[in-house]
Each structure stands twice: as structure tokens, then as C-alpha cells.
């Protein structure tokens, strides 16, 4: 029997470890996971390491060095199913702000011996380097979604990870809309559900940490953000945080005016 227990590996690239911690945070469920899989490689939890291949690899973090670009290929070769976890692994993360700046300049300003630092000019998602089977979004990921994907993979069913807007979950949770009722800027309408509409539940606008929903409408969202008092530049900034290198959010960030040819109904 023990030979058929699937093996799980967890890998870290450029990241803050928050997503791996979400797995450790699963507590009770983690014991159940540990009973169903053999955790063969998870340095955050144990120094015990078993050689590959692995049935499921969870990959946290983005690719920011040449060495990591090679290492992710090895991980891919050793993994039957590869799941990226979090905004870094799926979209390049907040560290992709460097993609729009001069890395050499940072290096010389921040480090006493810049020549010791070997880094690529960009931070890129895992999917830019190898094939990815499933992507989990969020900064950090939602532990409910993580368990759903692990459970679905173990039982061979399709995971339930919707791509509609945060607003769906916001209304289902019974939140009061912060955009409509408080005039707070919110990226919920263009952001993928998954967090359970956490920020609006605490009276804050959505920061977009789960990345773009399935069919975001740039101009309509720009009209909403402008109606809450944001400037052109504020709109651009809102999109360029957790998913700064996501091509969809980059495109959205460039639209800072509402739909043309029609006055806003709110006016």
C-alpha cells in the first residue's frame, strides 16, 4: 500500500514564503493531507528530503536569477503535476516592479558589494519558463483553494476554482459594497474571486491580489475608480502592485478614462 501513496514536494523561488505558510496554516487539514500523501520535499516544514520524481509539486515564487531559471526546469522534470501557488509564481509578484526599472541602479544603491548580486533584469512567472498544470492566485493564496486543488488532484476530479469577479463572493458573503456605499475604490469587479472577498469584508477596497478575472472591462472599471476620486496616476498604480507584470493588468492600467461617447450614469 505505502508504495502507492502519492508524493508531494513544495518548492520556493523568489517569494516571501507566505504561500507555503498558508499550507502550514491549514493545521487540522494539514494532518489529513499528511495522512494521504508523503511529503517528500518541503524545507519550510522539514529537513527530511526524498529524491524525486514527485507526483505533485507546489511551486512558490518567481524566477529572478539564471540559477532559478535552470532549477525550475529540473523541478518540472521531476514533477508529474506542477501547481504554482500565489501571485509571485503565477504572475511575477510584487518584485516584478523591477521589470519597469533599472536593476543595475538598484543594485548599486542598495548593496555595498553589488558585484556579489547576480540577478536577472526581470521577475517572471513560472509559466514563462515551464508548463504549468494548475495556477493558484492570490497574495497569499487562499488556503481553502489550496486544499480544494490538493483534494481534487488526489481524487482525480476537477478543482472548483472560479474565474468570475470578487463581487460574486462579496455579495455571497453578505458584504456591503464599499464602492457603492462608501465611495471607496475597489478592484473587485475586475479581479478573480478566490479570497472570499476578504478586504471588502473589512471595509477596504479590493487590491486585486488574485489578478484579473475572466473578462475584465478596463474602461468600465476606470469609470468606477475615477468616480471614487482617483486620478489617472492612482488608477495606474492600483493595478501595478501584486500583479504588476500581469499582461492583463498592465493593459488595464493603461485605461484611465471611462467608456467613450456616453456620460456616466452616476453623474
Amino acid at each position: 500500500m505505502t508504495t502507492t501513496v502519492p508524493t508531494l514536494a513544495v518548492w520556493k523561488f523568489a517569494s516571501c514564503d507566505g504561500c507555503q505558510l498558508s499550507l502550514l496554516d491549514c493545521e487540522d487539514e494539514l494532518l489529513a493531507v499528511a495522512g494521504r500523501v508523503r511529503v517528500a520535499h518541503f524545507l519550510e516544514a522539514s529537513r527530511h528530503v526524498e529524491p524525486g520524481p514527485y507526483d505533485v509539486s507546489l511551486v512558490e515564487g518567481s524566477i529572478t536569477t539564471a540559477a532559478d531559471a535552470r532549477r525550475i526546469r529540473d523541478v518540472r522534470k521531476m514533477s508529474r503535476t506542477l501547481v504554482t501557488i500565489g501571485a509571485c509564481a503565477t504572475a511575477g509578484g510584487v518584485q516584478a516592479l523591477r521589470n519597469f526599472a533599472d536593476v543595475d541602479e538598484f543594485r548599486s544603491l542598495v548593496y555595498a558589494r553589488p558585484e556579489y548580486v547576480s540577478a536577472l533584469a526581470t521577475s517572471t512567472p513560472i509559466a514563462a519558463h515551464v508548463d504549468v498544470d494548475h495556477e493558484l492566485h492570490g497574495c497569499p493564496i487562499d488556503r481553502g483553494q489550496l486544499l480544494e486543488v490538493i483534494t481534487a488532484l488526489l481524487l482525480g476530479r476537477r478543482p472548483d476554482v472560479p474565474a468570475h469577479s470578487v463581487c460574486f463572493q462579496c455579495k455571497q458573503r453578505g458584504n456591503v459594497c464599499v464602492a457603492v456605499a462608501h465611495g471607496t475604490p475597489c478592484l473587485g469587479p475586475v479581479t478573480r474571486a478566490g479570497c472570499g472577498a476578504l478586504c471588502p469584508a473589512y471595509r477596504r477596497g479590493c487590491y486585486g491580489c488574485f489578478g484579473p478575472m475572466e473578462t475584465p472591462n478596463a474602461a468600465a472599471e476606470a469609470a468606477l475608480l475615477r468616480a471614487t476620486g482617483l486620478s489617472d496616476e492612482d488608477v495606474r498604480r492600483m493595478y501595478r502592485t501584486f500583479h504588476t507584470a500581469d499582461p492583463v493588468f498592465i493593459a488595464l492600467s493603461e485605461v484611465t478614462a471611462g467608456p467613450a461617447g456616453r456620460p456616466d450614469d452616476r453623474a
Partner: protein
Amino acid sequence: MASGTRPRTPPPALLDATALEALVDALRARGFTVMGPTVRDGAVVIAELTSAADLPYGVGVDTDAGRYRLRARDDRAAFGHSAGPQSWKNVLHPPRALVWSADRTPDGSMAGGEPARERRYALLGVRPCDLAAIKVLDRVLTGGRQADPVYTGRRDGNLIIAVECTEPGAVCFCSSMGTGPGTDDGFDLALTELVDGGEHLFVVRAGTGEGAEILAGLPARPADEGIVERAREAVGAAAGRMGRTMRPGSLPDLLAEARGSPHWDDVAARCLTCGNCTMVCPTCFCTTPEDVTDLTGDHAERWRRWDSCFDLDFSYLHGGSVRTSGRARYRQWLTHKLGTWHEQFGSSGCVGCGRCIAWCPAGIDLTREIDALAAAGAG
């Protein structure tokens, strides 16, 4: 049931506002879970009331397309606010509900479990438009061959205390839809709130025996014809002060003819396909199943959660989604709600509550979209 003819119900009575406390206490003493309006996070929401003190006394609402703000009233009206982000749908057809669960038994077979029996709800403060919405949900969820057990479990044995409207909100249009601002049936008790100077009264009518019984236990006095007439006039005047109007004429015909209208592109340019309108609409009933298994695979549950025709997966058939554009999805919502609903369920799917107008983050107003479609068709 013919409205207005209830020979055995008692004549209208008068309650002081302070008697709301006795009313909520009486309902709770009878074992009801009392659901009603209360303030949370800058809106009037529907939640369990443990006493009448939870009601939003003195709270008014300023609302418009894509906008909703609480404001302080200069009186202590308990029902001086128009529709918030929730409706009675949240209670009767909840956002997420367990449909069944099953466990694998030692011999390898599956044993199914029934969902738990629901509580008995008293719905306090149901507006006439929302009363009409409950009737729509009754037809949709219990009118077919299979009554929905989650809905009937929550709906059966309801006690409904309606509150007529004397101050319509800026996004209300119940009088165009024939659902308000007054009501004559479908309730156990109906209140009309009168606040004037130092006076704060409710004219109360009983619509059922159970309503009459509860009323008999309250500190009520007979209402004279003068005050009953005042209440009637206040409701009548409200009918002329609606913030919005739905265009008269056959909307099913208009929408069928507007299938190819260029106006759908115009509204799609503004629509976020965020799904808020269908979630807040008191009659949108669509759900999607959600299968949950634990890690061992020995315990499985089927849940269902609200879905929306604005979700891409909603129209997913093999090979892809049928309605991919925002244009197709907005058209589905409006055409179902105001058009094909008639053929499917024998009434409009819209009761004129205005929620989808106020709670649309893009401020899209279906009454204006209908006008624009009519204009585009005529032009």
C-alpha cells in the same frame, strides 16, 4: 385570491411605535427567528433581530445609480429607508446551501444524509415590491413538478409582516411594475408607518388568522376611519413620487425585437460583467452545484451557490461558453428578467425594487437601458 376581501379579518388597528418591541418579543416567544432590517457597515442589511432596538430608527438612505449612502432622518422612522444590498432571497434562497451529504460506510456503500430541518422565520419589514418578489420565487422554486427543498424548508411556515411604502427611494419604480407601494395580500400583518411631529404610529391590518392572533396580543387600539384614510393617502401619494419609471407597453415584445440592437454594445462598454445586479435582485434564482470531498474521499457533500448569467462558466457547454461577450451576457439578464420570464413563469421577473440600479458599481440603470433600446428600435 381576490385582494381586499377578507371578511373574517379584524378591522385595522393602531399601534404606538413602542409596541414594535412587544411585537418582536411576541414573535420570538412563539419560536420564530425574526429577520428584519438593521444597520451594518454603512447600509441597512437584513439580519436576525433579537429585539426591536435593532431596527434602523431614524435612518434614511440617499441612493442613485451606483450609489447608496445612509443619512440621519429628522424623525425616528423605523422603516424610512429604501432597498439595501440584500433582499429576502438571502434568507429564503441563501447564497450557499447544502443539498446533500454522503458517507462511505465500512461495507463500501454510500449512505446519504438529509439536510437539516430549517427554523421558522418571521420576516419583519417586507416591502410590497419584496412581497411580490417572494411570490415570484414561490412560483419559480415551488411551482414546478419538483419543489425546491432548501427553499420550502426556509419558506414554509413564514410569518410575514409587510410594511407599506410612504417614501419611495430614488431608484424605486414599483408602481410601474404594479407591485407597490401598497399591498393587499400575501402578508400575515401589514404595517403603515406614520411619523409626524411627535407622533409615531403604525396602522396595522391582519391578513391571516395567525396575524390576527398576534395582533390581539399587542397593545393595540382601534384605528378610526380618519387615520386609516391618512395612511391610505400617504401610500397613494408615494405612488406618484417614484424615483424611476419603467416604460409601459410589452417588454417581452420590445426585447424580442431588440435582439440585434446596436445598443447592446453601448451598455456592454459600461458593464463590468461583475454579477452584482443578479446577486442583489430579489428574484434571480440561478445556482451552480459545488461538489466538496474531504481528503480521504470517504465524505462527500453537494452544495449549491448563487450563480449568475454574467459568469462565463454559466453558459459553458462542451467546447466552451455560449455567451462570451459582455453584450450577450447583459442581453441575457435583461431579456430574461423583463421578457422571457413572462412566458416561463407567468409574470415579469422584475418587481421594481431598484436594487440592481443602486448596487451596480457601474451605475447601469435598467429603466434607462429599456428606454434606449426602445429609442434605438424606433430610430
